[in-house]
Protein backbone atom coordinates (compact mmCIF):
# COMPACT_ATOMS: atom_id res chain seq x y z
CA UNK A 1 0.00 0.00 0.00
CA UNK A 2 1.33 3.42 -0.86
CA UNK A 3 1.85 5.55 2.21
CA UNK A 4 0.61 9.05 2.80
CA UNK A 5 3.30 11.65 3.32
CA UNK A 6 3.20 15.34 4.17
CA UNK A 7 4.79 17.00 1.15
CA UNK A 8 4.73 20.33 -0.66
CA UNK A 9 2.51 19.90 -3.70
CA UNK A 10 5.23 21.13 -6.10
CA UNK A 11 7.56 18.42 -4.78
CA UNK A 12 4.77 15.87 -5.14
CA UNK A 13 4.54 16.93 -8.81
CA UNK A 14 8.24 16.10 -9.20
CA UNK A 15 7.67 12.75 -7.49
CA UNK A 16 4.81 11.99 -9.89
CA UNK A 17 6.99 12.86 -12.87
CA UNK A 18 9.76 10.68 -11.43
CA UNK A 19 7.34 7.79 -10.88
CA UNK A 20 6.20 8.19 -14.48
CA UNK A 21 9.85 7.66 -15.48
CA UNK A 22 10.13 10.60 -17.89
CA UNK A 23 13.04 10.82 -20.30
CA UNK A 24 13.44 14.55 -20.94
CA UNK A 25 12.64 17.64 -18.86
CA UNK A 26 13.36 20.90 -20.68
CA UNK A 27 12.56 23.82 -18.38
CA UNK A 28 13.42 27.40 -17.67
CA UNK A 29 14.87 27.09 -14.17
CA UNK A 30 14.32 30.60 -12.75
CA UNK A 31 11.22 32.57 -11.71
CA UNK A 32 8.27 32.20 -12.50
CA UNK A 33 9.30 28.57 -12.07
CA UNK A 34 8.18 26.67 -8.97
CA UNK A 35 9.99 24.01 -6.94
CA UNK A 36 8.80 21.43 -9.45
CA UNK A 37 11.77 21.56 -11.80
CA UNK A 38 14.21 22.44 -9.01
CA UNK A 39 13.37 19.14 -7.34
CA UNK A 40 13.40 17.30 -10.67
CA UNK A 41 16.91 18.54 -11.34
CA UNK A 42 17.91 17.20 -7.93
CA UNK A 43 16.33 13.84 -8.65
CA UNK A 44 18.22 13.65 -11.95
CA UNK A 45 21.51 14.82 -10.38
CA UNK A 46 21.16 12.30 -7.55
CA UNK A 47 20.62 9.48 -10.03
CA UNK A 48 17.10 8.76 -8.79
CA UNK A 49 15.61 9.61 -12.17
CA UNK A 50 17.37 8.57 -15.36
CA UNK A 51 16.40 11.54 -17.52
CA UNK A 52 17.88 14.44 -19.44
CA UNK A 53 17.32 17.71 -17.56
CA UNK A 54 17.71 20.65 -19.96
CA UNK A 55 17.89 24.06 -18.27
CA UNK A 56 17.07 26.26 -21.27
CA UNK A 57 17.25 30.04 -21.64
CA UNK A 58 13.52 30.78 -21.84
CA UNK A 59 10.12 29.15 -21.76
CA UNK A 60 9.88 29.65 -25.53
CA UNK A 61 12.94 27.41 -25.80
CA UNK A 62 11.60 25.02 -23.15
CA UNK A 63 8.50 24.26 -25.20
CA UNK A 64 10.54 24.05 -28.41
CA UNK A 65 12.86 21.52 -26.77
CA UNK A 66 9.85 19.59 -25.43
CA UNK A 67 8.48 19.24 -28.95
CA UNK A 68 11.84 18.04 -30.24
CA UNK A 69 12.15 15.53 -27.41
CA UNK A 70 8.64 14.15 -27.90
CA UNK A 71 9.26 14.01 -31.65
CA UNK A 72 12.12 11.54 -31.14
CA UNK A 73 9.90 9.43 -28.91
CA UNK A 74 10.94 10.59 -25.43
CA UNK A 75 8.47 10.86 -22.57
CA UNK A 76 8.59 14.60 -21.96
CA UNK A 77 7.59 16.91 -19.12
CA UNK A 78 7.83 20.59 -18.33
CA UNK A 79 6.28 23.06 -15.92
CA UNK A 80 5.77 26.79 -15.84
CA UNK A 81 3.57 29.58 -14.64
CA UNK A 82 1.94 32.86 -15.75
CA UNK A 83 4.54 35.02 -17.63
CA UNK A 84 6.51 31.90 -18.50
CA UNK A 85 3.45 30.36 -20.10
CA UNK A 86 2.76 33.61 -21.91
CA UNK A 87 6.30 33.58 -23.32
CA UNK A 88 5.72 30.01 -24.51
CA UNK A 89 2.52 30.99 -26.28
CA UNK A 90 3.72 30.67 -29.90
CA UNK A 91 5.10 27.18 -29.37
CA UNK A 92 2.22 26.01 -27.17
CA UNK A 93 0.08 25.94 -30.33
CA UNK A 94 2.63 23.91 -32.26
CA UNK A 95 2.77 20.96 -29.83
CA UNK A 96 -0.78 19.70 -30.47
CA UNK A 97 -0.61 20.34 -34.20
CA UNK A 98 2.51 18.15 -34.33
CA UNK A 99 0.73 15.63 -32.07
CA UNK A 100 3.55 15.59 -29.53
CA UNK A 101 2.29 14.15 -26.22
CA UNK A 102 4.05 16.48 -23.77
CA UNK A 103 2.76 16.77 -20.21
CA UNK A 104 2.97 20.23 -18.63
CA UNK A 105 1.97 21.37 -15.15
CA UNK A 106 0.92 24.99 -14.78
CA UNK A 107 0.98 26.58 -11.34
CA UNK A 108 -1.83 29.00 -12.25
CA UNK A 109 -1.06 32.62 -11.57
CA UNK A 110 -2.21 36.08 -12.59
CA UNK A 111 -0.74 37.86 -15.58
CA UNK A 112 0.64 41.35 -15.06
CA UNK A 113 -0.13 44.22 -14.82
CA UNK A 114 -0.12 45.49 -12.27
CA UNK A 115 2.69 43.08 -11.54
CA UNK A 116 1.31 40.07 -9.73
CA UNK A 117 2.85 36.75 -8.78
CA UNK A 118 -0.30 35.47 -7.09
CA UNK A 119 -2.93 32.92 -7.95
CA UNK A 120 -5.79 33.17 -10.41
CA UNK A 121 -6.58 31.59 -13.78
CA UNK A 122 -5.60 34.39 -16.18
CA UNK A 123 -2.51 32.54 -17.43
CA UNK A 124 -4.26 29.39 -18.57
CA UNK A 125 -7.32 31.18 -19.93
CA UNK A 126 -5.02 33.01 -22.34
CA UNK A 127 -3.99 29.55 -23.63
CA UNK A 128 -7.52 28.16 -23.58
CA UNK A 129 -7.80 27.65 -27.33
CA UNK A 130 -4.34 26.20 -27.93
CA UNK A 131 -5.48 22.61 -28.63
CA UNK A 132 -4.08 20.94 -25.48
CA UNK A 133 -6.13 18.69 -23.23
CA UNK A 134 -6.61 20.62 -19.99
CA UNK A 135 -7.56 19.39 -16.53
CA UNK A 136 -7.88 21.30 -13.23
CA UNK A 137 -6.95 19.81 -9.87
CA UNK A 138 -8.58 20.62 -6.56
CA UNK A 139 -5.92 19.41 -4.12
CA UNK A 140 -2.44 17.93 -3.92
CA UNK A 141 -3.53 14.31 -4.23
CA UNK A 142 -5.49 15.14 -7.34
CA UNK A 143 -2.51 16.98 -8.83
CA UNK A 144 -0.38 13.86 -8.34
CA UNK A 145 -3.01 11.56 -9.82
CA UNK A 146 -3.85 13.82 -12.76
CA UNK A 147 -0.19 13.88 -13.81
CA UNK A 148 0.00 10.08 -13.98
CA UNK A 149 -3.33 10.13 -15.85
CA UNK A 150 -2.04 12.82 -18.22
CA UNK A 151 0.89 10.73 -19.46
CA UNK A 152 -1.43 7.80 -20.03
CA UNK A 153 -3.93 9.84 -22.04
CA UNK A 154 -1.45 12.00 -23.95
CA UNK A 155 0.54 9.00 -25.19
CA UNK A 156 -2.51 6.91 -26.12
CA UNK A 157 -2.19 6.10 -29.85
CA UNK A 158 -5.76 7.37 -30.35
CA UNK A 159 -4.83 10.70 -28.79
CA UNK A 160 -1.17 11.77 -29.11
CA UNK A 161 -1.87 15.25 -27.85
CA UNK A 162 -0.11 17.32 -25.20
CA UNK A 163 -1.84 17.76 -21.88
CA UNK A 164 -1.84 20.51 -19.26
CA UNK A 165 -2.56 19.77 -15.61
CA UNK A 166 -3.58 22.99 -13.85
CA UNK A 167 -3.00 23.53 -10.16
CA UNK A 168 -3.48 26.79 -8.31
CA UNK A 169 -0.26 28.70 -7.76
CA UNK A 170 0.70 29.13 -4.08
CA UNK A 171 -2.61 27.81 -2.68
CA UNK A 172 -1.52 24.41 -4.00
CA UNK A 173 2.00 24.76 -5.39
CA UNK A 174 3.54 26.06 -2.14
CA UNK A 175 1.39 24.24 0.39
CA UNK A 176 2.22 21.02 2.25
CA UNK A 177 -0.53 18.43 1.97
CA UNK A 178 -0.93 14.77 2.90
CA UNK A 179 -0.47 12.87 -0.38
CA UNK A 180 -0.33 9.18 -1.22
CA UNK A 181 2.69 8.92 -3.50
CA UNK A 182 2.66 6.06 -5.97
CA UNK A 183 6.03 4.46 -6.66
CA UNK A 184 7.50 3.92 -10.12
CA UNK A 185 6.67 0.21 -9.97
CA UNK A 186 3.07 0.95 -8.97
CA UNK A 187 2.74 3.49 -11.76
CA UNK A 188 4.25 1.08 -14.30
CA UNK A 189 1.11 -1.09 -14.03
CA UNK A 190 -0.89 1.83 -15.37
CA UNK A 191 1.59 3.58 -17.60
CA UNK A 192 3.24 1.44 -20.27
CA UNK A 193 6.36 2.71 -22.10
CA UNK A 194 5.59 5.41 -24.67
CA UNK A 195 5.24 3.93 -28.15
CA UNK A 196 5.27 6.81 -30.61
CA UNK A 197 3.59 6.38 -33.99
CA UNK A 198 6.02 8.60 -35.87
CA UNK A 199 9.54 9.55 -34.81
CA UNK A 200 12.33 11.70 -36.16
CA UNK A 201 14.91 9.13 -37.22
CA UNK A 202 17.64 9.71 -39.82
CA UNK A 203 17.34 6.09 -40.96
CA UNK A 204 13.68 6.56 -41.75
CA UNK A 205 13.27 10.25 -42.52
CA UNK A 206 10.00 12.11 -41.99
CA UNK A 207 9.23 15.82 -41.93
CA UNK A 208 7.32 17.13 -38.92
CA UNK A 209 5.90 20.61 -38.97
CA UNK A 210 5.90 21.36 -42.71
CA UNK A 211 4.26 24.39 -44.30
CA UNK A 212 0.48 24.10 -44.39
CA UNK A 213 -0.48 25.71 -47.68
CA UNK A 214 -4.03 27.10 -47.89
CA UNK A 215 -5.05 23.90 -49.69
CA UNK A 216 -4.15 21.80 -46.60
CA UNK A 217 -4.24 24.02 -43.49
CA UNK A 218 -7.98 23.59 -42.93
CA UNK A 219 -7.66 19.82 -43.16
CA UNK A 220 -4.76 19.84 -40.67
CA UNK A 221 -6.86 21.91 -38.23
CA UNK A 222 -9.81 19.56 -38.68
CA UNK A 223 -7.53 16.67 -37.68
CA UNK A 224 -6.37 18.48 -34.51
CA UNK A 225 -9.93 19.46 -33.55
CA UNK A 226 -11.38 16.04 -34.15
CA UNK A 227 -8.62 14.27 -32.20
CA UNK A 228 -9.05 16.66 -29.26
CA UNK A 229 -12.81 16.15 -29.12
CA UNK A 230 -12.41 12.41 -29.56
CA UNK A 231 -9.92 12.25 -26.68
CA UNK A 232 -12.71 12.54 -24.11
CA UNK A 233 -13.54 8.84 -24.21
CA UNK A 234 -9.88 7.96 -23.67
CA UNK A 235 -9.69 10.46 -20.79
CA UNK A 236 -12.72 8.94 -19.07
CA UNK A 237 -11.57 5.37 -19.72
CA UNK A 238 -8.14 6.16 -18.26
CA UNK A 239 -9.78 7.58 -15.12
CA UNK A 240 -11.85 4.41 -14.72
CA UNK A 241 -8.74 2.25 -14.96
CA UNK A 242 -6.98 4.52 -12.50
CA UNK A 243 -9.81 3.94 -10.02
CA UNK A 244 -9.57 0.19 -10.47
CA UNK A 245 -5.85 0.16 -9.72
CA UNK A 246 -5.49 2.85 -7.08
CA UNK A 247 -8.99 3.33 -5.65
CA UNK A 248 -9.42 7.03 -6.39
CA UNK A 249 -12.03 7.81 -9.00
CA UNK A 250 -12.27 10.91 -11.17
CA UNK A 251 -14.86 12.26 -13.59
CA UNK A 252 -14.97 15.19 -16.04
CA UNK A 253 -17.42 17.01 -13.73
CA UNK A 254 -17.78 16.55 -9.98
CA UNK A 255 -20.98 17.39 -8.14
CA UNK A 256 -21.47 17.99 -4.44
CA UNK A 257 -24.87 18.11 -2.70
CA UNK A 258 -26.70 19.08 -5.88
CA UNK A 259 -29.82 17.01 -5.06
CA UNK A 260 -32.81 19.32 -5.03
CA UNK A 261 -30.55 22.36 -5.22
CA UNK A 262 -32.08 25.70 -6.12
CA UNK A 263 -28.69 27.20 -6.92
CA UNK A 264 -25.49 25.40 -7.80
CA UNK A 265 -22.08 27.05 -7.55
CA UNK A 266 -19.71 26.21 -10.42
CA UNK A 267 -15.98 26.31 -9.73
CA UNK A 268 -12.60 25.09 -10.99
CA UNK A 269 -9.51 24.33 -8.94
CA UNK A 270 -8.74 24.61 -5.25
CA UNK A 271 -11.42 27.18 -4.29
CA UNK A 272 -13.83 24.27 -4.55
CA UNK A 273 -12.88 23.11 -1.06
CA UNK A 274 -13.85 26.49 0.43
CA UNK A 275 -17.02 26.42 -1.66
CA UNK A 276 -17.87 23.01 -0.13
CA UNK A 277 -17.65 24.52 3.34
CA UNK A 278 -19.93 27.34 2.22
CA UNK A 279 -22.40 24.81 0.78
CA UNK A 280 -22.36 22.77 4.02
CA UNK A 281 -23.01 25.86 6.16
CA UNK A 282 -25.84 27.07 3.94
CA UNK A 283 -27.40 23.60 3.80
CA UNK A 284 -27.40 23.60 7.64
CA UNK A 285 -29.49 26.75 7.44
CA UNK A 286 -31.92 25.12 4.99
CA UNK A 287 -30.68 26.90 1.87
CA UNK A 288 -30.85 24.48 -1.03
CA UNK A 289 -27.47 24.96 -2.60
CA UNK A 290 -25.04 22.59 -4.28
CA UNK A 291 -21.69 22.66 -6.02
CA UNK A 292 -20.32 21.55 -9.36
CA UNK A 293 -16.73 21.58 -10.54
CA UNK A 294 -15.11 21.14 -13.91
CA UNK A 295 -12.11 18.84 -13.73
CA UNK A 296 -11.94 18.50 -17.51
CA UNK A 297 -11.87 21.89 -19.21
CA UNK A 298 -10.67 20.95 -22.72
CA UNK A 299 -12.16 19.09 -24.48
CA UNK A 300 -15.20 20.66 -22.84
CA UNK A 301 -17.49 17.90 -21.47
CA UNK A 302 -20.71 19.05 -23.17
CA UNK A 303 -22.86 15.94 -22.67
CA UNK A 304 -21.80 15.45 -19.05
CA UNK A 305 -22.47 19.11 -18.34
CA UNK A 306 -25.94 19.11 -19.86
CA UNK A 307 -26.78 15.95 -17.89
CA UNK A 308 -25.40 17.39 -14.65
CA UNK A 309 -27.54 20.56 -14.74
CA UNK A 310 -30.85 18.76 -15.26
CA UNK A 311 -33.35 19.90 -12.63
CA UNK A 312 -31.16 22.72 -11.35
CA UNK A 313 -32.87 26.14 -11.38
CA UNK A 314 -29.85 28.41 -11.41
CA UNK A 315 -26.07 28.25 -11.77
CA UNK A 316 -23.71 30.69 -10.07
CA UNK A 317 -20.54 30.41 -12.15
CA UNK A 318 -17.33 31.55 -10.48
CA UNK A 319 -14.60 32.74 -12.85
CA UNK A 320 -11.06 33.46 -11.71
CA UNK A 321 -10.10 35.48 -14.78
CA UNK A 322 -11.60 38.37 -16.70
CA UNK A 323 -12.17 38.02 -20.40
CA UNK A 324 -11.69 41.72 -21.05
CA UNK A 325 -14.49 43.33 -22.97
CA UNK A 326 -16.46 40.10 -23.31
CA UNK A 327 -18.52 41.06 -20.24
CA UNK A 328 -18.09 37.84 -18.37
CA UNK A 329 -15.49 35.27 -17.45
CA UNK A 330 -14.35 32.52 -19.83
CA UNK A 331 -15.98 29.72 -17.80
CA UNK A 332 -19.33 31.48 -17.60
CA UNK A 333 -19.28 32.30 -21.33
CA UNK A 334 -18.56 28.64 -22.11
CA UNK A 335 -21.31 27.47 -19.74
CA UNK A 336 -23.82 29.75 -21.41
CA UNK A 337 -22.86 28.65 -24.92
CA UNK A 338 -22.96 24.99 -23.86
CA UNK A 339 -26.57 25.46 -22.74
CA UNK A 340 -27.71 27.17 -25.92
CA UNK A 341 -30.26 24.89 -27.55
CA UNK A 342 -30.08 22.39 -24.66
CA UNK A 343 -33.37 20.72 -23.72
CA UNK A 344 -33.00 21.89 -20.11
CA UNK A 345 -31.57 25.33 -19.39
CA UNK A 346 -30.99 26.66 -15.89
CA UNK A 347 -30.57 30.40 -15.42
CA UNK A 348 -26.89 31.36 -15.37
CA UNK A 349 -25.33 34.15 -13.30
CA UNK A 350 -21.66 34.97 -13.67
CA UNK A 351 -19.35 36.07 -10.86
CA UNK A 352 -15.69 36.97 -11.16
CA UNK A 353 -13.68 36.64 -7.99
CA UNK A 354 -10.34 35.61 -6.51
CA UNK A 355 -8.19 37.65 -8.89
CA UNK A 356 -4.44 38.11 -8.37
CA UNK A 357 -4.24 36.11 -5.16
CA UNK A 358 -7.27 37.52 -3.35
CA UNK A 359 -8.97 34.79 -1.32
CA UNK A 360 -12.53 33.77 -2.03
CA UNK A 361 -13.90 33.29 1.47
CA UNK A 362 -16.86 31.24 2.63
CA UNK A 363 -18.71 34.53 3.12
CA UNK A 364 -18.08 35.53 -0.48
CA UNK A 365 -19.45 32.23 -1.77
CA UNK A 366 -22.53 32.76 0.44
CA UNK A 367 -22.91 36.23 -1.04
CA UNK A 368 -22.81 34.84 -4.60
CA UNK A 369 -25.39 32.17 -3.77
CA UNK A 370 -27.73 34.73 -2.16
CA UNK A 371 -27.42 37.01 -5.17
CA UNK A 372 -28.09 34.13 -7.55
CA UNK A 373 -31.21 33.11 -5.57
CA UNK A 374 -32.46 36.69 -5.69
CA UNK A 375 -31.76 37.09 -9.42
CA UNK A 376 -33.36 33.72 -10.17
CA UNK A 377 -36.57 34.74 -8.37
CA UNK A 378 -36.63 38.01 -10.31
CA UNK A 379 -35.84 36.15 -13.50
CA UNK A 380 -32.88 38.38 -14.31
CA UNK A 381 -29.54 39.55 -12.98
CA UNK A 382 -26.53 41.54 -14.18
CA UNK A 383 -24.69 40.05 -17.18
CA UNK A 384 -21.75 39.46 -14.81
CA UNK A 385 -20.27 41.08 -11.71
CA UNK A 386 -17.03 41.24 -9.76
CA UNK A 387 -17.34 39.99 -6.20
CA UNK A 388 -15.29 41.55 -3.44
CA UNK A 389 -14.26 44.67 -5.37
CA UNK A 390 -13.99 47.82 -3.23
CA UNK A 391 -15.86 50.81 -4.60
CA UNK A 392 -14.05 53.41 -2.47
Amino acid sequence: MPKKVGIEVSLAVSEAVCAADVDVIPAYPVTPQTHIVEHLSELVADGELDAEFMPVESEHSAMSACIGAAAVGARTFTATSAPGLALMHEIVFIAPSLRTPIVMVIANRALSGPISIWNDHSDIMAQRDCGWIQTFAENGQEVFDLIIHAFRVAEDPEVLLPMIVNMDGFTLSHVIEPIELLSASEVSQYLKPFEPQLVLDPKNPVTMGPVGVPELYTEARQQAESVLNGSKKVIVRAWKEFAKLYGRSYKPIETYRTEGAEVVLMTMGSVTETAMTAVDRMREKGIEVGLMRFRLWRPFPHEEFRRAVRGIKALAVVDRAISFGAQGGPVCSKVKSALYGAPYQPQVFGFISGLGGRDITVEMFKQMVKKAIRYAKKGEGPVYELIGVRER
Partner: protein
Amino acid sequence: MAKVDAITGWRNLEIGCAITEPGSSRKLKTGDWRSQRPVTDYDKCIKCGLCWIYCPDMVYSPTRDGYFKWNGDYCKGCGICAHECPKDAITMIMEGE
Protein backbone atom coordinates in the same frame (compact mmCIF):
# COMPACT_ATOMS: atom_id res chain seq x y z
CA MET B 1 -1.57 29.77 -56.57
CA ALA B 2 0.98 27.00 -56.50
CA LYS B 3 -0.04 23.72 -58.04
CA VAL B 4 -0.30 21.03 -55.37
CA ASP B 5 -0.45 17.36 -56.30
CA ALA B 6 -0.85 16.34 -52.66
CA ILE B 7 -4.41 17.64 -52.15
CA THR B 8 -6.27 15.22 -49.90
CA GLY B 9 -9.03 14.95 -47.30
CA TRP B 10 -8.22 15.45 -43.62
CA ARG B 11 -8.70 11.78 -42.77
CA ASN B 12 -5.83 10.87 -45.10
CA LEU B 13 -3.33 13.24 -43.53
CA GLU B 14 -0.48 11.69 -41.57
CA ILE B 15 -0.40 12.23 -37.80
CA GLY B 16 0.32 15.90 -37.20
CA CYS B 17 0.38 16.55 -40.96
CA ALA B 18 3.82 14.93 -41.12
CA ILE B 19 5.44 14.13 -44.46
CA THR B 20 6.59 10.53 -44.56
CA GLU B 21 7.74 10.40 -48.18
CA PRO B 22 11.24 11.89 -48.57
CA GLY B 23 11.63 14.36 -51.43
CA SER B 24 7.91 14.88 -51.90
CA SER B 25 8.39 18.65 -52.17
CA ARG B 26 9.28 17.95 -55.80
CA LYS B 27 5.56 17.59 -56.31
CA LEU B 28 4.97 21.16 -55.21
CA LYS B 29 5.78 23.19 -58.32
CA THR B 30 6.50 26.62 -57.00
CA GLY B 31 7.89 28.29 -60.09
CA ASP B 32 4.68 29.81 -61.37
CA TRP B 33 4.78 33.00 -59.33
CA ARG B 34 8.10 34.45 -60.54
CA SER B 35 8.02 37.70 -62.50
CA GLN B 36 11.44 37.29 -64.15
CA ARG B 37 13.35 34.29 -65.44
CA PRO B 38 17.09 33.72 -66.02
CA VAL B 39 18.27 32.93 -69.53
CA THR B 40 21.79 31.54 -70.02
CA ASP B 41 23.93 32.54 -72.98
CA TYR B 42 25.94 29.34 -73.53
CA ASP B 43 28.43 31.19 -75.74
CA LYS B 44 29.62 33.14 -72.69
CA CYS B 45 29.33 30.25 -70.19
CA ILE B 46 32.61 28.77 -68.89
CA LYS B 47 30.91 25.82 -67.10
CA CYS B 48 32.10 27.01 -63.65
CA GLY B 49 28.88 25.79 -61.95
CA LEU B 50 28.36 28.80 -59.71
CA CYS B 51 24.73 29.22 -60.87
CA TRP B 52 24.15 25.56 -59.90
CA ILE B 53 25.81 26.04 -56.50
CA TYR B 54 24.20 29.35 -55.58
CA CYS B 55 20.63 28.71 -56.70
CA PRO B 56 18.63 28.34 -53.42
CA ASP B 57 16.08 26.10 -55.13
CA MET B 58 18.36 23.63 -56.92
CA VAL B 59 16.86 24.67 -60.23
CA TYR B 60 19.99 23.93 -62.31
CA SER B 61 21.25 20.47 -63.06
CA PRO B 62 24.51 19.53 -64.77
CA THR B 63 24.23 18.28 -68.32
CA ARG B 64 26.38 15.64 -70.04
CA ASP B 65 28.37 18.30 -71.91
CA GLY B 66 29.24 20.23 -68.73
CA TYR B 67 26.69 23.03 -68.93
CA PHE B 68 23.85 23.70 -66.48
CA LYS B 69 20.24 23.31 -67.45
CA TRP B 70 17.46 25.45 -65.93
CA ASN B 71 14.12 23.93 -64.71
CA GLY B 72 11.27 26.44 -64.71
CA ASP B 73 9.05 24.35 -62.39
CA TYR B 74 10.92 25.56 -59.33
CA CYS B 75 12.68 28.86 -60.25
CA LYS B 76 11.39 31.85 -58.22
CA GLY B 77 13.19 34.40 -60.37
CA CYS B 78 15.30 35.71 -57.47
CA GLY B 79 18.20 36.57 -59.80
CA ILE B 80 20.94 35.14 -57.57
CA CYS B 81 22.32 33.02 -60.41
CA ALA B 82 22.54 36.06 -62.71
CA HIS B 83 24.23 38.08 -59.97
CA GLU B 84 26.79 35.37 -59.20
CA CYS B 85 27.70 34.37 -62.78
CA PRO B 86 31.35 35.54 -63.26
CA LYS B 87 30.86 35.91 -67.03
CA ASP B 88 27.52 37.76 -67.05
CA ALA B 89 26.21 34.86 -69.08
CA ILE B 90 22.82 34.92 -67.33
CA THR B 91 20.26 37.62 -68.09
CA MET B 92 17.00 38.11 -66.21
CA ILE B 93 14.14 38.74 -68.58
CA MET B 94 10.52 39.60 -67.78
CA GLU B 95 8.10 36.68 -67.84
CA GLY B 96 5.81 36.92 -70.83
CA GLU B 97 8.50 38.47 -72.99
